[in-house]
């Protein structure tokens, strides 16, 4: 069985509702990118929205968009990935515990703090009793969902699955990430990603959902050919790992028409990316996206949104180009991502 991306919904720091890339803009003025808020009222009542965290709201919007585009009413599986989970409700409940010495608590934020809340709320909304999974493994949370979704189709367990990556940011978590050096220092003032010399990155948040189906359709973006995750890869064997991955799919480096990298501006953790961009793939067109989406554990889902649109439109927008190289045709696209040196992923998609 093959796996086709037949619908995409994306809530991110970019406007993605018009033509591909038409709403893209780079914001180097902040180290935590705000999302472009969708019209929530088109999706649920303001009363319902008041009870929902950002992750749930954005997850419902993005999944609804993806299903609408693919003209899918009931998925055969709902599979989500989230690195940090529902931290808004988790923070709220934990603060209440500490601040009130474990008294006067209400269950709402606890109930909504579990990592599977988004997948559960989507299932509830659709009354979907099918397979329902949530992965929470940092930077490969989304790829785990993608692997599972593809496995569902490959093994004939389902014909159409809904998969997505969701992460939300809170002020408190951002302050902790700044303290730990994961987010660039406020004093830097300007936050470029490609030419960065400083540690830390620019964070963001978002929800990106995909409908995967075993049949091609009028809305098909691309075929998902293969995904591989590895918790650790030493930089000096990264190229070997990539060759193995490509050759397992009958491809070589020259067959790759675009390399999409998760470069996030953290000067401390660029070695792996450079192994590919400046060595074996130096003559391959290259693209990046975290200057648009910001970094978050499931930002690589935004990367797949980008790659799928490149394959569909056969256009690599200048705003995402790394080395200025282009090709007349974009048939095979390889995505590579890791976060702080662990949780590496290769995702290969092809023109359908």
């Amino acid at each position: 069985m093959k796996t086709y991306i037949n619908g995409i919904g994306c809530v991110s720091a970019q406007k993605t509702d018009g033509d591909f890339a038409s709403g893209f803009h780079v914001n180097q003025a902040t180290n935590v990118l705000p999302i472009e808020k969708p019209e929530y009222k088109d999706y649920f009542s303001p009363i319902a929205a008041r009870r929902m965290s950002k992750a749930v709201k954005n997850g419902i919007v993005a999944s609804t968009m993806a299903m609408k585009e693919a003209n899918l009413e009931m998925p055969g599986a709902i599979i989500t990935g989230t690195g940090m989970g529902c931290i808004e409700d988790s923070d709220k409940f934990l603060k209440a515990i500490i601040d009130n010495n474990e008294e006067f608590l209400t269950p709402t934020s606890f109930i909504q703090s579990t990592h599977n809340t988004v997948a559960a709320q989507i299932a509830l909304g659709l009354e979907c009793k099918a397979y329902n999974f949530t992965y929470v493994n940092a930077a490969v949370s989304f790829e785990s969902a993608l692997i599972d979704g593809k496995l569902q189709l490959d093994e004939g367990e389902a014909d159409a699955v809904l998969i997505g990556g969701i992460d939300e940011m809170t002020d408190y978590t951002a302050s902790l990430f700044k303290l730990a050096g994961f987010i660039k220092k406020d004093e830097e003032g300007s936050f470029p990603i490609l030419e960065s010399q400083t540690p830390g990155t620019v964070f963001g948040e978002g929800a990106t959902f995909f409908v995967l189906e075993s049949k091609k359709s009028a809305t098909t973006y691309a075929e998902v050919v293969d995904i591989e995750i590895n918790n650790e890869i030493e930089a000096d064997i990264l190229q070997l790992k990539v060759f193995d991955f490509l050759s397992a799919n009958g491809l070589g480096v020259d067959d790759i028409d675009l390399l999409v990298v998760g470069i996030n501006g953290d000067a401390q953790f660029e070695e792996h990316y450079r192994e590919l961009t400046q060595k074996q793939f130096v003559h391959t067109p290259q693209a990046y996206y975290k200057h648009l989406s910001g970094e978050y554990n499931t930002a690589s889902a935004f990367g797949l949104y980008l790659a799928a649109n490149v394959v569909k439109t056969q256009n690599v927008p200048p705003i995402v180009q790394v080395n200025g190289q282009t090709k007349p045709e974009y048939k095979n696209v390889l995505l590579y991502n890791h976060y702080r040196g662990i949780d590496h992923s290769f995702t290969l998609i092809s023109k359908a």
Partner: protein
Amino acid sequence: MKVAITGMGIISAIGSTVDENFESLVGGRKAITDIDHIPTVHAKAIKVGEIKQSNADLAHELGLASDNNYTRTAMIGALAARQALQNAGISDVNAYKTGLISATSVGGMDTTEKHYYEYFNDPALVKYISAHDGGDVAQKIAETIGLKGFVTTISTACSSAANSIMLGARLINAGKLDRVIVGGTDALAKFTINGFKTLMILTDGYNTPFDDNRKGLNLGEAAAFLVLESDKVVKEQNKKVLAYVSGFGNANDAFHQTASSENGEGAFLAMEKAFKLAGLQPSDIDYINMHGTATPNNDLSEGRAVIRIFGEQNVPDFSSTKAFTGHTLAAAAAIEAVYSVLAIQNGVVYPNLNFETPMQEFNLIPQTEIKYKNIDHVLSNSFGFGGNCSTVIFSKN
């Protein structure tokens, strides 16, 4: 469909090894006690299934340096996974294409809640900021056992570890992995204690699964991992197979964020799928290890689902082992997988402790005394918040 189980490791309130856990189960020794390690205002109002080793004890056992940033969830997970590999006789974990699938509900929350506001005042604590998420727990376990490869984590609340077993079996079946270490880990935390407290589903005494007067659950902490291996590896290495994963099912109740539906629809569907995949009939099951949390809602919903599958007169011997261990959340399905395999190996049905009064809604009486008999197939249920329902069937051959 069947996938071989070749190793198991466990640490829970009733024992720090597989043997200790088994001795406690057959000896009828529960370990529900007052809480020692977490200072909480609810200390007098609750009892828990607590692993009595301190964090320092666990770190010592793992041989961790003093500047480590392992949370309690990671440490018990690492200990259980290490045991599982030893039990499976695996010395080079990367010799075959090997994966790790962990499961956790709150990850490193045990540490986060201790230091939440102190991070800004004490630089020595900053190392724990990166230890909060579920992925860090899996990475710590992978580091401990030296695994480099496929590592992921599932979090579907209290059904999590059943889903890691399921994913592991699917990946082996599909030929994606040769070996996979699957399971889950969750340490007790003030966060979950207070969460379940506000939901008013914690008992102030000892939990009494399937009893008409049940008042709720005791929380527990535990970790367990199992090694699954492909037929190829089993054959090549002439491996001893402990039991097989022969079926599984996952469904969503799609009823309520925390409560189970009246008729246990999600549980029913999960069991139905598991039977279909296993090619077994309900009459083939010799023992059901119930989810049986002893909350009014779970036991009623699960009981009804079991009746729908088996018929009220034909329900096989069943018990919940949560009266021994407490409800260990994301680890529950993993420790109960270990108990299910032990039930098959030793031909034993564990007693459902603390049962006195049958439920009024149906005629289901759990096995209250230990019972020895041949066991070929065990069905194990696990359900979680978010409507997540999972069933795994374990078989002797």
